[in-house]
């Protein structure tokens, strides 16, 4: 079936490096994508989102890139800090209309570990 998935389950980086977390999706009808950060024992925290009419969106130290041609999404974190260590999930929202707007389909998650 259609799903959202991640290429790499774990990523280890040194403090100060840039991190790139990747996500593949298979549903071409998806038109809204979100990245969440989940720290141990906590609920997911919104990081950044992007709509399908865009290919890039920047936030504070984070950038999301969307390539609809290959159905690929990435999260770039600049100058990664130890506090960025967490599990990162991509999620999609399908544009089928009606009540399906509320459903988010999540990927498996990537564990980011930042070493000081």
């Amino acid at each position, binding site marked *: 079936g259609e799903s*959202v998935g991640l290429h790499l389950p774990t990523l280890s980086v040194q403090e100060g490096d840039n991190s790139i977390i990747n996500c593949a999706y298979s549903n071409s009808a998806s*038109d*809204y994508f*979100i990245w*969440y950060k989940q720290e141990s*024992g*906590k*609920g*997911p*925290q*919104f990081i950044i*989102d992007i*709509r399908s009419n865009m290919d890039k969106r920047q936030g504070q130290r984070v950038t999301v890139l969307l390539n609809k041609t290959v159905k690929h999404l990435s999260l770039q974190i600049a100058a990664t800090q130890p506090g960025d260590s967490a599990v990162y*999930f991509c*999620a999609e*929202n399908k544009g089928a209309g*009606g*009540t*399906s*707007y*509320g*459903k*988010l*389909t*999540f*990927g*498996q*998650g990537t564990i980011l570990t930042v070493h000081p």
Partner: protein
Amino acid sequence: GAGVSQSPSNKVTEKGKDVELRCDPISGHTALYWYRQSLGQGLEFLIYFQGNSAPDKSGLPSDRFSAERTGGSVSTLTIQRTQQEDSAVYLCASSLMGAGFRETQYFGPGTRLLVL
């Protein structure tokens, strides 16, 4: 301001017992969502409430699962005759408007359910 709150934070129960999980959404948010997160997995959509509309129950895994939302605010997720495979973190989220909008969903800390 106050975020989404959930109670209890942890619940241990015996197989076959019923459990009730509570979610208090952010004040003023009309949409409320329940997700389930199994160990090391992404989030799985369960059910979605938006205002006074009939809830989208398409993600509920069996008829042992039910949820209600009273007065458009607090929601309770009930699992009857719990099974060991029900063990997971149950996450609640809310958003301002819900259906028809691409909105940020704000998550609570979750309830960790362990069925022995």
